[in-house]
C-alpha cells in the first residue's frame, strides 16, 4: 500500500513532538538568545542566573504540561471516536473538558485546592468522570452522531453555566478573566508542582487507554462482531471511562479546557495509519502532544503584544475540521 509503515509514522510523530518540545524551550516573552538557552540547558550558566531559572523552572514545566495535556486530549479523542465509531467524538465537544474544568473551579473556589494538593486533579477527574458517564448514558453506544453532539452541547452549556455560577458566587475580582482561563485553556505559569500533581493520573489514564486498541480494532465490525472476537464490551467501557476521566480530568484541572485537539489529531492521522483504530492510538498520543506544543509556541511568539489563549488557537485550527466533518457525516446526522 502507498501509506507509510506504522513504525515510521510513529517514530516521525515522536521525533516531531520531541523537536517541538525542544523548540518550545527556546521561545518565550523573555526573548533569551539561543546561546543563553544552550548555556542554561547544559548547566554552564550559574544556578542563580535568570536564564537558568527561566529555562528550568518556567519553560520546562510549561512544555511538560503542554505535552501531557496534548497527549491526554489526542489519545482520548482517538479512543472516543473508535469506541463510539463517530469521527465527531472529542473530549471538548462532548463536554468532558468542561466537566473537568468545573471540577477544577470547584476545587479552587471551595478552598479544597488550598487544603490538599490532590483536590485539584481529583475534582477535575470527578468532573470529567461524571460528564463521561452522562454522555455515554444519554448518547451511548448506539446513539447517532447527532444524539452525541446534542448531549455534548447540553452538558457543555450546563458545565459552563455552573463554572460562571461558582465564579460569580466566589465574589472575586478576577471572575471574568478566570472564566476565560477555564473555557479556553492556558499553559501560562504552570509549574513543576502542577506537572508533579497531574503527571501520575494522566500517565495512568494514557496507560489504560492504550489497552483499548484490540477492542477498538474489533469494533470496526460492530458490537456483535467485536463480542464474537472475544472482546468484553463492558470491560472496554470501564477502561475508556476511567482512562478518559483520569487523563482529561487531571490535565484540564491544571490547564483549563483546551478544545478540538482530540478532534483534529485523530482526523489528520487516520489516513497515515490506514484507518486502523488501534494504531491510531499511539499516533494520536504523540500527535496531540505535538499539536498543543506547536500551538503554545505560537501563543508565546505573539506575546507580549497579544495575549492569545491556547484554546483560541486550537479552535481556529479545529473548528474548520469540525465543519468539514459535519458536512461529511451530514447524511448520517439527518437520518
Amino acid at each position, binding site marked *: 500500500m502507498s501509506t507509510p509503515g506504522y513504525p515510521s509514522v510513529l517514530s516521525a510523530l515522536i521525533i516531531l513532538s520531541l523537536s517541538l518540545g525542544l523548540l518550545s524551550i527556546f521561545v518565550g516573552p523573555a526573548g533569551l538568545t539561543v546561546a543563553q538557552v544552550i548555556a542554561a540547558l547544559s548547566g554552564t550558566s550559574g544556578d542563580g542566573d535568570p536564564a537558568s531559572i527561566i529555562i528550568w523552572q518556567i519553560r520546562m514545566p510549561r512544555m511538560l504540561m503542554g505535552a501531557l495535556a496534548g497527549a491526554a486530549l489526542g489519545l482520548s479523542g482517538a479512543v472516543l471516536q473508535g469506541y463510539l465509531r463517530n469521527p465527531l467524538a472529542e473530549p471538548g465537544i462532548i463536554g468532558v473538558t468542561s466537566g473537568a474544568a468545573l471540577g477544577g473551579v470547584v476545587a479552587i473556589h471551595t478552598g479544597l485546592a488550598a487544603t490538599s494538593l490532590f483536590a485539584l486533579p481529583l475534582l477535575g477527574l470527578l468532573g470529567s468522570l461524571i460528564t463521561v458517564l452522562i454522555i455515554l448514558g444519554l448518547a451511548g453506544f448506539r446513539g447517532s452522531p447527532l444524539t452525541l453532539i446534542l448531549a455534548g452541547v447540553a452538558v457543555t452549556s450546563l458545565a459552563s453555566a455552573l463554572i460562571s455560577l461558582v465564579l460569580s458566587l466566589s465574589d472575586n475580582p478576577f471572575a471574568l478573566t478566570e472564566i476565560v482561563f477555564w473555557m479556553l485553556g492556558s499553559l501560562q505559569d504552570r509549574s513543576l508542582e502542577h506537572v508533579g500533581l497531574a503527571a501520575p493520573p494522566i500517565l495512568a489514564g494514557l496507560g489504560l487507554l492504550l489497552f483499548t486498541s484490540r477492542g477498538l480494532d474489533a469494533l*470496526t465490525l460492530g458490537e456483535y*462482531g467485536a463480542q*464474537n472476537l*472475544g*472482546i468484553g464490551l463492558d470491560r472496554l467501557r470501564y477502561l475508556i471511562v476511567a482512562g478518559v476521566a483520569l487523563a482529561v480530568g487531571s490535565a484540564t484541572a491544571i490547564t483549563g479546557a483546551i478544545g478540538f485537539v482530540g478532534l483534529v489529531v485523530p482526523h489528520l492521522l487516520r489516513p497515515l495509519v490506514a484507518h486502523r483504530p488501534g494504531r491510531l492510538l499511539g499516533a494520536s498520543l504523540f500527535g496531540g502532544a505535538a499539536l498543543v506544543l506547536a500551538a503554545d509556541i505560537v501563543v508565546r511568539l505573539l506575546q507580549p503584544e497579544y495575549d492569545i489563549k491556547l484554546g483560541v488557537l486550537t479552535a481556529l485550527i479545529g473548528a474548520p475540521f469540525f465543519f468539514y466533518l459535519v458536512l461529511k457525516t451530514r447524511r448520517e446526522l439527518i437520518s
Partner: protein
Amino acid sequence: MTLEFNNVSFSYGAGFSLHDLSFCLQPGECVGLIGPNGAGKSTILKMLAGIIKPSGGDIVLDDMKPEDLGPRVIAQKTAYLPQQRRFHWDISVRSLIELGRLPYRRRFGGLLPDDHRAVERAIELMDLKAHANRPVSNLSGGEQARVHVARALAQDAKFILADEPTAGLDPAHQISLMRCFAEHAKTGGSVLVSLHDLGMAARWCDRILLLDNGRIVMEGAPDMVMTRDNLARVYGIRAHVSRTEDGLVIATAGLSNDA
C-alpha cells in the same frame, strides 16, 4: 466436540420469546436454520455465539459452560457472522480479515506465521486475492459480504454461526460460500447457518431446523422437513418441491391462501 442447547428459553419484552429449545450441533454437519421472520433464528445464533445470554436452560460448548471458558476461548471455538454487516472504519480488506486472528493474538503482539497462513487461506477461499489491499469501502456489497465470511474463516473456529450470509451475494458467490461451509463441515467442523433461500438450504445442508414462533417445529434431513405441507403451514406459501439428480429443488409458486 459439540455445541448443545439444553432446554434453552429466552424472552425479550412481552412480544418475543423462545421456548424450551434443545438441539445439538455435531462435528461434520452443516445445519440450516429456516423459518419466517421473527421465528427466532438470529436470537439462537446470538446465544450460541455468546452475545446474549439465555434466560433459562444451558448452552454447552465442548462439554463446558461458556461462562467457564471465557470470551477468548469461545472466540477461538465459534465464529459468528452477524446479519448486520457494516464496516465502521475504512481499513484494508487484509487488515479486516486479520481481525479474525484477534482471539489468538497476545496483547500488543504482531501476527505470527500461523496467523498469516489462516488469513491467506481465508482470502483464497473467498476469492479476495485481487482486493486484499484495497480499502473495504471500495468494494461492492457482495465483495464486502465475502470479506465478512473470510474474517470468520480466518478465525479458524470449529463452529461457524452465520446469520443470512448469502444475502446480497450473486448466485455464483452464494454457491461458493455454501460450498465452503460444506467443506468446513467435511473437515470436521460444524456450521449453523440461517437462510431464507430454501433451495440453498435444501441443497447444501445436512440437516434442517425449521423454526416457527420461537419453537423448533421440525428437525431432520432436508427432504423430511421441507415438505409442501410443512412449508405451507410455517411460511404460508405454496411451493413446488421436487427431487432431482442435483438434490432437492424448491420453487415458491405463491401464497397458500392465493388458491
